[in-house]
């Protein structure tokens, strides 16, 4: 089934596509896109279900780091290609979302 590219999905994909090899965790993505974490999570889950994104738990000792492990997300090779193509054909995000990205020099 084709991925529905809402503005929120586009924001997440753009954040991940900025450096497709880089892994990003929930909070980082949330700050990057301006989306609330509760909004970003279902999107990441759907992207993962579609095979566009892969995720893993951070391999750290939570006691040593004094924080719980993070869940890292990264675009798969196929996902990066499909996401780029989908974004190229999609309508650009408008309004507040676009202004936020523009403030970061992305849009």
């Amino acid at each position, binding site marked *: 089934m084709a991925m529905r590219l809402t503005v929120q999905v586009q924001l997440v994909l753009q954040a991940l596509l900025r450096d497709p090899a880089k892994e990003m965790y929930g*909070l980082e993505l949330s700050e990057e896109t301006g989306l609330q974490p*509760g909004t970003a*999570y*279902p999107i990441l889950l759907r992207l993962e279900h579609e095979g566009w994104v892969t995720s893993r738990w951070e391999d750290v000792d939570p*006691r040593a780091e*004094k*924080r719980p492990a993070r869940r890292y997300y990264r675009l798969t090779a196929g996902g990066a290609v499909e996401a780029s193509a989908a974004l190229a054909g999609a309508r650009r995000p408008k309004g507040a979302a676009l202004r936020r990205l523009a403030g970061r020099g992305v849009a």
Partner: protein
Amino acid sequence: MMPELDSPKEARRKQRVRVVVVIGACAATASAAVDGSRFHASWYWAPWVLGLTAIVVFTGVAMAISGDLPRRRGRGSGSLRASGRDDVGPAAVAAYRCRTLVLVSRMMPGPAGRRWLAEAESLLSEITAARRGRAIRSYLLSAPRLVLMMWAQEALRRVRPGPRRPR
């Protein structure tokens, strides 16, 4: 140096001991409150001081380490658990725990709910208290749709033959 960790069995045994001590201390304090005359006048303070101290100390310790205790959920041998898809990450140090999120996570299919909760707790422990309220609200607002989505995926996974997609 890393502190030496108790085995899950040992941790549970200690937890039980703490519960017994707190119940005993509560009983002693309540006894002093209800019928203080049974204690000698010069020792009247003892059950109060010792009881309340024990309650505060042991409750504090229990709260401080509650995130480190192994969880009972997910240790069974049900079909979901036996399929090796429990994906809650490394032994969790839950720095922040929201009771409502725990309840909501239990409405989701087992492994998916545990993962959602683990990710939410991980994120909430890293943000400031000021932003935490909005973040929790966003998790709760998206939860109903997520619960439906997860159960739909779970139903499809059970119906579909062949190898299961790893999470």
